[in-house]
């Protein structure tokens, strides 16, 4: 079955087409948010149960270290390119860079779903790596933006709440821990909602994401051609990097693809909220357009099959 013809991707395309055609189709916002929360619960639970099942391994520590490294390196590299080639000022370059250092939960989930349907399910601990990679890039981004200027203390408290205590981080981590506690057996009574219904609900969510992404693109005012190119170049480069690191650490092809997707994807949930608070001068229209309207669709439609092929190749290379 061709990956592009999976219903998940097709619903994303339908949403995007509807928005481009200026249809009045719209998903009620509370439903989108609900679906987004549901997906995080479900993926968190799944990860916890898989880890509970397989036990802690050294591979997990390696994967966590690789994830952390990527989320520190990527924003620094992206910042440099955004400043020079992208012609952004310091604040905006730092804001955008933070997004690329962090991850997109939905890209990961969609990739996971497609990999599973190809019998290449990534290791369960990658979901912990996903949670781990959500915040560090924000700190790096702020450091790049300020370089020397110290922020006041009260703001730090607020920022802590918007990063480590961000709803999506709490829900993902919390569900992961619940998954660890209840294990496979305790999961059974809730499996019809959190597992059987997963792909169908993901379709509905991606329909909405298609609408949101296309509308953002239509309303993006400050997006230059250079920035659009970076919005495609970043995921390719970062995904390649993730794929090389994953393969060199000896991960299987599915897990390597997952690491590539984490590297390639850009946040549009946790990071924008934190950056809007910490760097209010940065242009929210710009960083949301780049991560949500350029990189996200690219990853969903091109990135997932691309990094799957590359990872399969890399893993064979290393063997």
């Amino acid at each position, binding site marked *: 079955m061709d990956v592009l013809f999976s219903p998940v991707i097709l619903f994303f395309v339908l949403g995007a087409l509807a928005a481009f055609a200026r249809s009045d189709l719209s998903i009620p916002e509370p439903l989108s948010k609900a679906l987004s929360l549901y997906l995080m619960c479900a993926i968190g639970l799944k990860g916890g149960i898989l880890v509970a099942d397989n036990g802690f391994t050294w591979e997990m520590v390696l994967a966590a270290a690789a994830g952390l490294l990527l989320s520190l390196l990527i924003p620094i590299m992206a910042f440099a390119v955004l400043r020079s080639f992208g012609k952004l000022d310091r604040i905006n370059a730092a804001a955008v860079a933070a997004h690329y250092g962090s991850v997109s939960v939905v890209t990961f989930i969609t990739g996971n779903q497609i990999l599973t349907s190809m019998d290449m399910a990534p290791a369960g601990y990658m979901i912990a790596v996903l949670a781990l990679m959500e915040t560090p890039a924000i700190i790096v981004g702020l450091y790049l933006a300020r370089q020397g200027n110290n922020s006041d203390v009260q703001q730090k408290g607020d920022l802590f709440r918007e990063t480590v205590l*961000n709803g999506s981080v709490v829900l993902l981590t919390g569900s992961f821990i619940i998954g660890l506690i209840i294990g496979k057996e305790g999961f059974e009574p809730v499996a019809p909602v959190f597992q059987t219904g997963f792909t169908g609900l993901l379709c509905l969510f991606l329909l909405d994401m298609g609408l949101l992404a296309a509308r953002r693109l239509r309303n993006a005012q400050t997006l230059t051609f250079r920035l659009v190119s970076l919005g495609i170049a970043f995921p390719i480069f970062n995904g390649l990097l993730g794929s090389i690191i994953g393969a060199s650490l000896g991960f299987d092809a599915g897990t390597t693809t997952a690491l590539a997707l984490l590297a390639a994807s850009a946040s549009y949930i946790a990071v924008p909220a934190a950056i809007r608070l910490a760097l209010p001068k940065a242009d929210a229209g710009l960083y949301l357009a780049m991560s949500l309207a350029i990189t996200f669709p690219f990853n969903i439609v091109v990135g997932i099959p691309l990094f799957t092929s590359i990872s399969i190749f890399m893993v064979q290379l290393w063997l």
Partner: protein
Amino acid sequence: MTKRKKLEILVDTPLLKRIRDLSKQAGVYGYTLYPTFGGEGEAGRWIDDQVTGGAGSKILYVTISEAEIADRFLETLTPLLEEYGLMITVSNVDVLLAKND
């Protein structure tokens, strides 16, 4: 009926807490929040979107207070106007029972 000032501030959801903290410093305690649906301005058009972590969502903060307190609050807000992209309006209202000011 007592004369009061009504301050309305359109603010990005993630910045709301900051406004609330500043209002307390200015001596404004009571306020009410209203949801928005969308809008358009220099920064382009937006539709309230709850997925992108609130960065794509605005809230209307409304507080009724004595003119003096309102002025004090406005002063603390002025430096943030540009940076936070706030939209602030002030108008005259009569209140039937002055609360919290």
